[in-house]
């Protein structure tokens, strides 16, 4: 039988930007099985918050997992109060990660992230560079960037955009890519839906495809409730089907996603 819930011990939990926290957890089972692009479901101690919070895996290091999350509501507010030694309930890593088989040694990859979609790019960058792939990371924020140094350390060539123009390029990641004429053999992204949509259109125009990590409100996070669907057009049959983000995703091919599905 597969294991679902595990206990994790907080090793550190610090604020790395306004309302953004980086938490490192010790949990051998989860860390050993984790892949880049997967997520974990975190359970709240305040049981009035019934549902687990899905958070992407940002970094895997032996028995340790690092998560980076934005404080946006009661659940992530609770998370922000945890400190060294606290125990928390978590699911094993869930979903399919990014498919790294699409690129080979010597090829290049563009990894693109927006806001709180940036964290999963870190492990992704590391995994790609480990394979001998040249990684360029393009990350966009409203105002305050984060994870820049770790991305560079993981081996990425880094481009930063902010909506406010306070750091890096003044504008969004697609504009930045256009201006800098950034291209690669493979594309990977994570971020808000509108960004992923624009990005997919941009990449498809270049006759390439892109792996994007989708976000959706979840009930169970393991495929039982059919709450988290995303409409996908089957390449062969052309039929639209609703697939589960938690189980069939969260990573899908941009070309498959039906953006205007009702």
């Amino acid at each position, binding site marked *: 039988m597969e294991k679902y819930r595990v206990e994790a011990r907080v090793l550190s939990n610090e604020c790395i930007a306004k309302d953004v926290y980086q938490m490192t957890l010790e949990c051998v089972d989860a860390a050993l099985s984790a892949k880049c692009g997967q997520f974990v479901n975190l359970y709240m101690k305040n049981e009035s918050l019934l549902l687990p919070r899905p958070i992407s895996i940002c970094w895997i290091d032996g028995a340790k997992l690092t998560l980076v999350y934005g404080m946006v509501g009661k659940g992530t507010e609770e998370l922000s109060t945890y400190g060294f030694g606290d125990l928390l309930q978590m699911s094993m890593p869930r979903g399919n990660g990014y498919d790294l088989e699409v690129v080979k040694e010597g090829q290049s990859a563009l990894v693109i992230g927006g806001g709180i979609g940036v964290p999963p790019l870190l492990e992704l960058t590391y995994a790609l560079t480990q394979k001998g792939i040249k990684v360029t990371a393009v990350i966009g924020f409203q105002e305050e960037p984060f994870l820049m140094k770790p991305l560079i350390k993981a081996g990425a060539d880094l481009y930063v955009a902010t909506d406010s123009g306070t750091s890096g390029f003044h504008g969004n990641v697609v504009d930045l890519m256009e201006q800098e004429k950034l291209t690669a053999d493979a594309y990977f992204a994570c971020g808000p839906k509108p960004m992923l949509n624009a990005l997919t259109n941009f990449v498809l125009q270049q006759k390439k495809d892109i792996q994007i990590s989708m976000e959706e409100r979840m009930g169970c996070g393991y*495929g039982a409730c059919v709450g988290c669907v995303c409409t996908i057009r089957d390449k062969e049959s052309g039929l639209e089907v609703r697939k589960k983000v938690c189980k069939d995703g969260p990573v899908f091919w941009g070309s498959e996603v039906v953006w205007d599905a009702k």
Partner: protein
Amino acid sequence: MQNNNNPSNKEIENEDLDLRVKIAGVEWKNPITTASGTFSAKESSAFYDLGKLGAVTTKGVSDVPWSGNPTPRIAETYGGMLNAVGLQNPGVEAFISEEIPYIKKYDTKLIANVAGHTLEEYCRTVEKLNDTDVDMMEINISCPNVKEGGIGFGTDAKMAAEVTKAVKSLTKKPIIIKLTPNVTSISEIAKAVEAEGADAVSLINTLLGMRIDVRRGRTVLANKTGGLSGPSVKPVAVRMVYEVRKAVRIPIIGLGGIMTGEDAAEFLMAGANAVAIGTAALINPTAPIDILEGLKTYMKEMGFQNIQQIQNAFCD
């Protein structure tokens, strides 16, 4: 009250427990089943042996595939959740070819939950399930998330009776009617379906609810309203089981917010013959078997050796 059912005062072992219940002539090895829509044979069986449950109840199935509602379909609420999945399902043919054989590998009873917009749709699906290995059928006349369907039948005693009658005339398999809590008198509906031959009732389905995101000025669910479930609704569910128990003689499958073995016992005391685990299983896939274990622990601590003893221990 402790040990009053165990005069010898000898410690009760697991093997002394008899958890069997008979629901409409079908024997379950224990009174625990899954709640429709919160269980997926394929996903859930990765985490526990389905053969440990008294029965499994599958997601609502309709005569043709349904694509369900747009997203967001899920919203968290205080101690509960709203869902507006809208009965997305691949249709009864896919259910028959894939789901039934998959579940039938396990030593458990199979309850197929049936959805429909019209009387004819219910009937078509029931007919198609008639010659399958399904052990019981649960007719969902109470889904709040499908327009012009489901709940309309569940909120009107006459229509509820009509569906029951039609379905009963088509099949020999035991028919469970799933009732909605969104009514003035659930016992009136229960009586109406019992009169038309329902073999059992299950209750409650979800309470109709809504949540607005006041920062965005729109409902959290794309469907606007959704069904409220989880521990926050348990007091309403227990009260309804208690009311329906006084109104009908057929077995009751109780559900609504069961999170622990003692919650399950609460429904049994209120008058249920079996219980179903819904939202708890979304939060933790192994909830149905964890709750079964919790029920056993409770029984041992209280000195109960069978389910009947739990039911009898309630001083109404």
